[in-house]
């Protein structure tokens, strides 16, 4: 078993393949030429690849490939009801549904919207519980729009879902997406008059740990957080070795729920990696302490890594991956201890997602 990386860029989708050693990578692509691929994922249930694709003229769509990108099928009209007063601005993140629900997928988009498909991505319906959420008037867009960028499905309960929206916060559903409860207690929104509101937090990326699904991690505009109770409360984790609480991507270990990695940036007003270097920081103790895990990464760099542009695979040792706005993809075959450049000179990398291969 090796690893396949789906690398979404501003100019199409690239595929990177490697064997189990994950030290030599073969580049294929681009496919979906003309599309900005905000995120792509391979459905573990059937191997189909889905891409959240956007074009500056032709709008947002979802593309589907059952032959690993050789051919694509576009979804039918993706949009929002006119009476909502909202227009779809972008497709952000496509997430395969629970393993017990073949054909079900979720799609997060801008302006703070979630879609559900029950026909393997051919048609998509907006989720009313998010579209008409009673707190929506308190949501506000950031630099990336009002983007629903994180969608997580609890593997232990098909009815439990999470979404995170910038800047609206995190929401949990316990009834398969019908209703959504804000889960932002303890998460700061330092840019608002009320620093700890019910909603309005700027989550940059939220992940659920598949082996311990009550545990969530988030990289936020205002810190790094962990929840051990399905988002009901959060503990702030920056400091103790992290040079900054600001950043976008977060990676987790596929088996050890105490391991997470972030790539801090200087801050909201200077969005480049800290200290003029490309530094990944790893915790092995659930966020109590952080260490620099940057062996092999450029020591002189002012890099930008977007929120969708990191991932981990399921192998042992775990592989970790991220891509930069400068068009590089870095891979670590040993859980972050050492890194190598798997690809360079790509268009700006928008997303990286790892999947099993073949």
């Amino acid at each position, binding site marked *: 078993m090796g690893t396949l990386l789906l690398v979404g860029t*501003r100019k199409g989708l690239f595929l990177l393949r490697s064997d189990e050693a994950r030290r030599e990578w073969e580049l294929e692509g681009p496919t979906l*030429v*003309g599309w900005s691929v905000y995120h792509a994922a391979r459905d573990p249930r059937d191997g189909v690849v889905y891409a959240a694709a956007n*074009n*500056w*003229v*032709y*709008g947002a*769509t979802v593309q589907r490939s059952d032959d690993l990108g050789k051919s694509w099928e*576009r979804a*039918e*009209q*993706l*949009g*929002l009801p*006119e009476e909502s007063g909202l*227009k*779809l601005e972008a497709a952000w993140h496509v997430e395969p549904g629970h393993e017990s629900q073949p054909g079900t997928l979720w799609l997060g988009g801008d302006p703070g919207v979630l879609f559900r498909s029950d026909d393997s991505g051919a048609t998509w319906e907006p989720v009313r519980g998010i579209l008409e959420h009673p707190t929506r008037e308190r949501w506000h867009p950031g630099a990336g729009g009002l983007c629903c960028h994180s969608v997580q499905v609890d593997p232990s309960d098909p009815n439990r879902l999470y979404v995170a929206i910038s800047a609206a916060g995190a929401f949990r559903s316990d009834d398969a997406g019908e209703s959504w409860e804000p889960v932002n207690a303890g998460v700061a929104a330092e840019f608002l008059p009320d620093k700890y509101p019910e909603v309005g937090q700027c989550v940059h990326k939220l992940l659920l740990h598949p082996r311990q699904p009550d545990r969530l991690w988030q990289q936020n505009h205002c810190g790094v957080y962990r929840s051990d109770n399905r988002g009901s409360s959060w503990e702030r984790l920056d400091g103790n070795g992290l040079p900054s609480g600001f950043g976008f991507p977060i990676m987790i270990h596929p088996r050890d729920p105490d391991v997470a990695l972030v790539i801090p940036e200087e801050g909201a007003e200077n969005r480049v990696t800290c200290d003029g270097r490309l530094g990944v920081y790893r915790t092995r103790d659930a966020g109590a302490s952080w260490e620099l895990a940057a062996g092999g990464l450029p020591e002189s760099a002012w890099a930008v890594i977007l929120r969708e542009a990191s991932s981990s695979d399921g192998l042992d040792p775990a592989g970790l991956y991220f891509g930069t706005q400068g068009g590089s993809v870095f891979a670590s075959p040993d859980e972050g201890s050492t890194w190598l450049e798997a690809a360079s000179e790509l268009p700006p990398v928008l997303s990286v997602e790892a999947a099993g291969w073949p």
Partner: protein
Amino acid sequence: MAVILLPSLLASEAGGRNRFETDATTVGEALRQLPIANLVFDDHGKLRRLVNVYVDGVDIRGRGGTEVALDGAETVRVVAAVAGGIAP
């Protein structure tokens, strides 16, 4: 039959075809028959802002838009708006 010509990305999305013939009586009807209709119209059914349509070389905007009539002898050309800068 009027002829519709598509730019490269739309042709790719239409299975590689950049030329379609139509007996539609308006530009809107002609475009909605295409397999890429959901790329030229937005989610509310409006022609996307940066999609330009020319009938025999004349921009339909300001001349009736998608209601411009076709009598079957025209060439309808779909063109993505020209732009520079960093947005794409």
